């Protein structure tokens, strides 16, 4: 009995995976992301120089074989800074995405299964927070408390909770009416058991898709903050590199082009993986 139940989702899973890889862009993007994660983890092995050490090379030299992405005004190696910058970007994106995912599922399932007043209240809060100009909230927090990568990531994650919770709640609401969920209740299970056993697998796809979009936008927001100078100056950050490049735009194009391209590649990959995930979990969209 148990084995029969578990084979159905597995078949759907492989079916979905075929949908995912059928989009070339999503497949390539997933590969790029894996590569970026490896680069971030192995940064000290890959980067030829310490990322923030000044004077490792002459200042402002264009891309060459010794300095792949050139050097900045203080003689820091651009390539090394970009390699280490991947850590900052992925940390912010990862923390924010995880918080949004976990809290979003929790609140979404709770509201969707419980219904009534709890649901009403949660949805009001969610609706209100969706209007919030996130970037400005972050600016105010950064200017009052000073820049911190972890605080930025955490707050961005919390601000992203509503968009995950809203969609999870809608799915949970629909699932509540499904026969197998009703059967779960009829067997005498608690809300918690039903939520974990029967509802969670159904909402996981949506939650994953929305959360990965939030990872992308968290990385963009962090880049914007550090572009304005609100970043921890002890860690390499792509946004901070772009901030520094502004004064040298007309003389040192490489200082502006490479960090921005790094952000664009990572965010684009995450976005297209999210699109692949959406296609995988919601095949109806693929046929369009």
């Amino acid at each position, binding site marked *: 009995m148990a084995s029969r139940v578990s084979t159905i989702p597995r078949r759907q899973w492989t079916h979905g995976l075929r949908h995912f890889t059928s989009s070339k862009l999503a497949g390539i993007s997933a590969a790029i992301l894996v590569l970026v994660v490896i680069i971030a983890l192995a940064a000290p092995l890959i980067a030829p120089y310490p990322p923030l050490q000044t004077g490792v090379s002459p200042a402002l030299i264009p891309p060459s074989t010794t300095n792949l992405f050139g050097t900045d005004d203080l003689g820091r190696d651009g390539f090394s800074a970009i390699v280490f910058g991947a850590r900052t970007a992925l940390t912010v994106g990862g923390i924010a995405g995880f918080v949004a995912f976990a809290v979003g599922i929790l609140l979404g399932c709770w509201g969707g299964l419980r219904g009534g007043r709890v649901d009403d209240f949660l949805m009001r809060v969610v609706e209100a927070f969706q209007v919030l100009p996130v970037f*400005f909230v972050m*600016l105010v927090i950064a200017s009052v408390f000073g820049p911190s990568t972890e605080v930025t990531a955490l707050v961005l994650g919390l601000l992203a909770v509503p968009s995950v919770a809203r969609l999870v709640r809608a799915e949970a609401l629909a699932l509540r009416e499904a026969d197998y969920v009703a059967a779960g209740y009829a067997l005498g299970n608690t809300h918690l058991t039903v939520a974990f056993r029967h509802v969670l697998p159904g909402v996981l796809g949506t939650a994953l898709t929305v959360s990965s979009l939030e990872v992308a936008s968290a990385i963009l927001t962090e880049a914007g903050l550090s*572009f304005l100078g609100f970043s921890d100056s002890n860690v390499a950050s792509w946004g901070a590199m772009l901030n520094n490049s502004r004064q040298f735009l007309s003389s040192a194009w490489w200082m502006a082009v490479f960090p*921005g391209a790094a*952000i664009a590649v990572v965010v*684009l990959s995450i976005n297209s993986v999210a699109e692949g995930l959406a296609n995988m979990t919601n095949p109806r969209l693929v046929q369009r």
Partner: protein
Amino acid sequence: MSNLWLFAVGRVARAFPLVVLLLGFNFVMIHTAPGDPVAMLIGDAEAPELIETVRRDFGLDKSMPEQLIAYGSNIIRGNMGISYRYRLPVGGLITERLPATLLLMGSAFLISMLVGTILGVVAAVRRGTWLDSGLSVLALLGASVPVFWVGMLLLLAFAVNLRWLPLYGVSTVGFRADGIWDLVSDRVRHLILPSVTISVGQLALIFRVTRNRMIEELSKDYITQARAKGVPITRVWGVHALRNVALTLVTIAGLRIGVLFSGALLTEVVFAWPGIGQLMYGAMVGRDYPIVMGVFAMVVAVTVLANVVTDISYGFLDPRVRYG
């Protein structure tokens, strides 16, 4: 009609707690901000009696709840405090710079709506062709690049290398216009790069939404019926289908006002555009908290208001919403 007004009033009432909550957040932030506001205003060297007098004048000797109420009523009257640096009322500083920002946001909004909708319709009716896939990939890219980087690349290309367009500002310094056309063309030349910069992300979104909603609409029965009746195909696309898509676009546009504001802030910094974004950036660097909080309160107010207006106009545009 009364149904609709009830809907509108209800929507406004529902926005109220959010505004109160955000003003509360703002108030807490002002009091958490490092530095004594009075010392920031008049300097530390002054006599202690003077500091006491100023504290009383500003109501800073009162209890926190009293201060919160005073803050609320001040905000409602448009009184947002005095800038540490300019020593002028924040409200005035904001209204002085708001038109430049609105001009930027307005042009970006127009560009993204116009181009995004047209390209979206084109991609939808040519679905599955190379044109459609090409545009879709471009849109994905447009939604992924940081707005300020787009600005820097455009500057690099068109102002630094090609020298077609000016580097920064709203107008040429020391420029003497030969009549009105000269003046307008100088302003427009300054406006092009920053407004294109802000529009990129928005354009990508509008394109994607238009394309997907158009494809959805075009598969519906009323389209087949219109075609069967002999309505010209361009009219079916442009009038029948697009009209239903427009409802979705209105919602998106309303929800995205906050994003447009943040795009404007970053773009103003890149292009040295003298709007409220620059004002806020300078205030953040110089720890001029009344301005930071003032701009924040203004942006929040506009964003919430835009959403309320969108929701209500949606009710007016689509009869289904009222009874839903």
